[in-house]
């Protein structure tokens, strides 16, 4: 397999992990709105369903994007595809 094919395979792998986490917090948990509301786990005292829509999922997305960017930069570095400063 060529260097570029390997790079793309890793990039795709990272995409799937990122989208899986994204799916859980943007779609998956909202199948269980009523269960979240009834849950005794109450972050900062808010009902879990309320908390996830106000801050929880939103904050996780912010962290997820930075985590994804870091991982992708490592992959690019590994295969020598990092941009030069003067590009």
């Amino acid at each position, binding site marked *: 397999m060529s260097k*570029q094919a390997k*790079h*793309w395979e890793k*990039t795709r792998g990272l*995409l799937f992990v*990122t*989208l899986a986490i*994204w799916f859980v*917090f*943007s*779609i998956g948990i*909202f*199948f*269980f*709105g*009523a269960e*979240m*509301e009834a849950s005794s786990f*109450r972050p*900062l*005292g*808010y*009902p879990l*369903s*309320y908390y996830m*829509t*106000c*801050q929880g*999922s*939103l*904050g996780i*997305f*912010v962290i*997820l*994007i*930075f985590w*994804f*960017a870091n991982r*992708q*930069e490592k992959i*690019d570095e590994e*295969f*020598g*595809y*990092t*941009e*030069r400063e003067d*590009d």
Partner: protein
Amino acid sequence: MTKMIKGKFIDNLPKIYGIYTGGFLAFIILMSIAESAGMSAKLIGIFFVAFTVGIYALIGYLSRTLQLDAYYVAGRQVPTVFNGMATAADWMSGASFVAMAGGIYFKGYGYMALLVGWTGGYVLVASLLAPYLRKFGCYTVPDFIGTRYGGNLARVSAVIVLTVASFTYVTAQINATGTIASVALDIPFGIAVYIGLASILICSMLGGMRAVTWTQVAQYIVLIIAYLIPVFWISNKMGAGFFPHFMLADEVARIAELESQFGLGTVKNSAADLATVPKGLAGITKAHSSVNATPWAFISLAVCMMAGTASLPHVMMRYFTTPSVKSARRSVGWSLFFIFLLYSSAPMLATLSKLSLMDPNLATGIIGKSISEVQALDWYQNWNQANLMFVSDFNGNGTLDLNEFFMGGKAVVLATPEIAGLPYVISGLVAAGGMAAAMSTADGLVLAIANALSHDLYYKIIDPKAETAKRLIVARVLLFIIGFAGASIAALEIQGILGSVIWAFDFAMSGLFFPLVLGVWWKRANAQGAVAGMLLGLISGTAYLIWVRNGGAGFWGVTQLTFGIVGSLVSLVSMVVVSLMTKAPDAATQRMVDEVRIPSGRTVLGKQH
């Protein structure tokens, strides 16, 4: 020489915007001193709007340019964090600023799907699209479609989808600038719309993307200050908590308690009673925090907003302006962070606003008070006159019940500071913030449409030999025409602000989501498939919308707010089927896709093209 000054400007950004922020805070303090010295509320409002808009116009003028890459992509030198701020301003519209807290206030959990969708979409932007389109080096979104798939038909189809989606959106934004300008400057709406348009054009016409970038950063600073100060102030004044985001659990629980005490949902107003309520006002009919939507209703709306986010050209083109692929990727994270600051505050504002009106233990509470007492309140009279508040003693018991109080969605942001007893200077600040939010989004949208028409339609198809000077004149003339057309439609006041915003997402998702994503992630996708995907997606989505609007039953629980689901599914299926039935893209195109997938090396399209 100019090069040196430009380099210096970019290096000094933190200092320049630091001074600007300090200056703005000093202006707020100055205004509050003026207020206590007896300056009238009207004059304060005028000062706030005129001062901030004047600064944006100055930035727009200073950023004027005669270069193509500066006009179209801000010279590709906008630093990561500043591009994040500009994108946040570009993104957060008058609707986010003025109407979001109101939507949460009235609709609760079901509405929060919009917050989840409008933030979750950025994960798709970062992982599927932004870095690859940056590497491509395009000026506009149709530029990517046209070059990747080849052929004028693909390019024109992309221009059509972009124009439909963005134009739907921009009328709502110009409408919002008009609403705020008419309230703050106390002039009729029909005139205020054109004053709003003039300010929008001053910011974008001379400097294109470069001017819009630097005004958007300035507008973000104003709008976030204007949103956060009232939230923190009210929370502290009410004794609800020093840091509302982490401390309002008791208040949320208290609202639920009051809802059952006041019989939320048990007393229904008769149709005859409701007919006396002014149009556009609503009562509290839904629980504040409990789950009040089915999983599918919630998820389908969130999915549409996410896919729409990743397809709206005015957001995507912000990531064409960063210096590198790496910074484009990180910049998406910063954008979402800056958006998060406002979005996570909106539910807190809705909570504080609702509790301050509902709780009889608070001095501001009105539910349970006598009707005549409420009608005598200064702030009630003001907002009743502005047609944003209404009370009526339906059952004739002399006291105000929960089902007898009505309010407009905008009032949550606009009136809460006054209800909570904050000085008028805060209301002026909020008006300036709303103006900044609506202007920055309108700027981005008008520019996205005009650039697509001038670059993709005029230069790439009609007159490929046009010289730089001519191209820039055409771009500016189109900017003016688009803005004017948007303002003329806004002046007719056809739809509400929020409805048309949601439609824009569905249009963009129907026509552009899969052609964009598959352009990077599926080498086999070809021009015929992409054209079929864009046009059939847009047509089927639009047809579904028209059908449901005219009383059609719909299917799968897809409403007029989520018609993008139908459109994008048709788009995906037709794109894949048509691509597989026709010839695979040639070797050169395949190499181009390979090239896009790695960050290093030259962009596919040249610096000036």
